[in-house]
């Protein structure tokens, strides 16, 4: 019997081990101390009402009644000091630069495979490898225009990248709305604390998208492609389109003629140059991918391959963010950039390797086990909090299909004090900064901070009952 209490105490972002307030939280804590419990309760209620009125709700997958739920917003921000952010930013840019070079390489000369850094089967036998993209040139050689990199902290200075989301990362609208909300509810805190702004993200995004328009088009037309209003992230799609001042289109609004993509407008067809698509590869073009997709645009792929429209992100980026490719990212950074990675990977076991599999099976109750292609917190096992029966059931699934799983040590994710029913208590958090890759690589300071509201839980996904916090990156002194 293993001692389940032996996990190291989590790093508290606000307090040091002696219980003192860390310097970057002191100004906030002074402000917070001055607030009565009632005033904070009123603010929490107001935040809730306001999110409902704005309609920042998400629909729950598989719920036909169209129930709309709020993602709980917590008033206590995650605060990041300027020097820590500098480090994170450098690491993020380095990582996304290497990942982008990797995708380009995979769909062109395969240097990294020939050099033996990444095994051929990991690339070419991967369901996320898109043969349609082989030797296709995309504008500015950019594939992952928008990346949402999940970062966790285990100890002081101990940041790990958990996942590189390079397909259609979501959540940036929450980052923006959370900031709006905290500035509205706690204006006096902002007047005392210098927080780096984030509201210019939509401008950066539009800039980024216009930069990657197909050659020869000045004043390119950018659109946001959504699967429609019943998609769980519809709010975000509409929000970004509105903030950028571009059309929000569905597949039915676009059509292909004479190797050009058009949208149907009240004044007739209008040419489209850049599509920020919030639709998975499989649904983009029923002629090339899933024939049953009613969400896509027939013929889109051929226009894309001809370089006459830009898709952001590019088709086939999934090859770089699956959980098995993840293992090779530090090597990619060394291979393409000749640099040491600034941000580390979480140590990871591949169940596809017999020796690593046996280690994983022997330590299931200590590890986090994930599906290679899974996302959203579905299909994963958190060993230390799972029941005996859950562990046993998972063991069978891993045995039956080892290559489908990877395992990682259960990191003691750092915590931030959070409003819960019993008062304020530490809850585990992660951070998803957004990285924009155009002619330059750019970030906005901070990102979306997700918080696991259940005591002890390490799963922060909103689909699993997680909430969000505003993230404050402090300005340099």
């Amino acid at each position: 019997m293993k001692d389940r209490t032996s996990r190291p105490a989590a790093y508290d972002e606000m307090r040091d081990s002696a219980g003192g307030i860390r310097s970057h939280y002191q100004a906030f804590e002074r402000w917070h101390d001055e607030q009565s419990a009632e005033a904070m309760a009123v603010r929490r209620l107001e935040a809730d009402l306001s999110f409902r009125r704005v309609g920042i709700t998400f629909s729950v997958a598989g719920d036909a009644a169209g129930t709309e739920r709020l993602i709980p917003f917590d008033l206590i921000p995650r605060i990041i000091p300027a020097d820590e952010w500098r480090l994170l930013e450098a690491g993020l840019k380095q990582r996304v630069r290497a990942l982008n070079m990797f995708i380009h390489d995979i769909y062109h000369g395969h240097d990294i495979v020939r050099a033996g850094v990444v095994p051929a089967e990991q690339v070419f036998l991967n369901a996320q490898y898109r043969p349609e993209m082989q030797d296709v040139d995309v504008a500015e050689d950019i594939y992952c225009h928008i990346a949402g990199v999940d970062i966790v902290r285990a100890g002081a200075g101990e940041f790990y990248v958990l996942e590189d989301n390079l397909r259609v990362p979501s959540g940036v609208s929450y980052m923006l709305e959370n900031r709006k909300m905290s500035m509205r509810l706690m204006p006096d805190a902002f007047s005392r604390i210098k927080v780096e702004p984030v509201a210019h993200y939509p401008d950066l995004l539009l800039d980024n998208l216009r930069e990657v328009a197909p050659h020869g088009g000045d004043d390119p037309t950018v659109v946001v492609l959504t699967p429609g209003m019943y998609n769980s992230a519809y709010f975000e799609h509409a929000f970004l389109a509105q903030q950028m001042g571009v059309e929000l289109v569905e597949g039915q609004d676009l059509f292909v003629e004479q190797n050009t993509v058009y949208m149907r407008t009240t004044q007739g067809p209008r040419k489209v140059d850049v599509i920020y698509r919030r639709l998975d590869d499989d649904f983009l073009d029923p002629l090339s991918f899933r024939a049953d997709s009613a969400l896509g645009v027939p013929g889109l792929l051929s226009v894309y391959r001809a370089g006459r429209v830009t898709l952001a992100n590019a088709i086939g980026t999934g090859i770089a963010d699956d959980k098995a490719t993840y293992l090779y990212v530090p090597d990619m950074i060394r291979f393409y950039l000749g640099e040491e990675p600034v941000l580390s990977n979480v140590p990871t076991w591949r169940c596809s390797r017999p020796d690593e599999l046996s280690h994983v099976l022997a330590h299931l109750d200590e590890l986090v086990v994930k599906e290679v292609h899974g996302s959203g917190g579905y299909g994963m096992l958190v060993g230390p909090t799972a029941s005996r029966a859950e562990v046993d059931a998972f063991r069978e699934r891993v045995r039956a299909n080892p290559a489908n799983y990877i395992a990682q040590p259960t990191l003691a994710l750092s915590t931030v004090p959070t409003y819960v029913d019993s008062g304020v208590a530490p809850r585990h958090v992660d951070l998803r900064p957004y990285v924009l890759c155009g002619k330059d690589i750019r970030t906005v300071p901070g990102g979306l901070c997700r918080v696991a509201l259940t005591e002890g839980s390490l799963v922060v996904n909103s689909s699993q009952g997680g909430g969000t916090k505003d993230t404050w990156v402090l300005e340099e002194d």
Partner: protein
Amino acid sequence: MLSRTADNLFWMCRYTERAENTARMLDVNLQMSLLPQDAQTREGSWLGVLRISELQGLYGQKYASISPHDVLQYMVRDPENPSSIFSCMRAARENARAVRGSLTTEVWETYNTTWLELLKHLHTGLLERNPGEFFEWVKFRSHLARGVTIGTMLQDEALYFLRIGMHLERADNTARMLDVKFHERDGNGQESRGESAGAAPQSEFYRWSALLSSVSGLEIYRKVYRDVITPDRVAELLILHGDMPRSLLASMRAVADDLARVSNQRSTETERRAGMLCAELQYGRVEDILASGLHQYLDHFLDRINDLGNRISQDFLVPLSA
């Protein structure tokens, strides 16, 4: 602008306008029913409510008889009744949600809040407790939506399509209300056409003042005519008076003006038909309309409104390939 977006905007406003008009009609009917009436008149007026929306058949499938309670429930909160206030507000909000990126934040939040508040009012039984207050609330939310739209939206295509939807629906509703009220009178045979030019007897006074109230027209009538209420003038005010905001002429003028603003290569014939209709209203005389039969006139008018709606759909809203 995307055809689909224009379509959503058009219907968003039509449904809001319809919800408002339903509330107006129910409110006035409710107030009328507080006056001394015989049972037959009372039932007739509630039947009229259903007739305006062409719902007698559907209602009959659910309820055996016509009672104020059942009609109110059916017209306000029944999700199976496509014209109930509930259904209209739901459709308005769904349309708004589909195009929230084309609306200002304030407009979207107004629609969203209206929907959330409606759910709350229906849940807490405001309709049953104080129907007058509920109908006032519906009207107020519609006023608010209109005000926020005009006050915050860029004056571009989006606004024009919104307004086309709103005014087309308004013309439709005013015509229907007129038709039903005149039909009631003629059906009761209380008055022959020859006498209609004279002052109305007391019972008639309430009929016409109710009709005027339902379109916020009682005070306007007093101001315009400074005289007793006669059915002919009521018809004139609601059909031909261009300064009366809910009249057919005012509504159709607004439709024609906005159609000219969104004009495209396909829409010439639609604009011509809207212009014709306007001109006829502009130069029409109430004597001629009554002489040829008000019911036929309004019936024909509703057909033309319907035709315009279809043509607007084809010209602008339905996505065509090229």
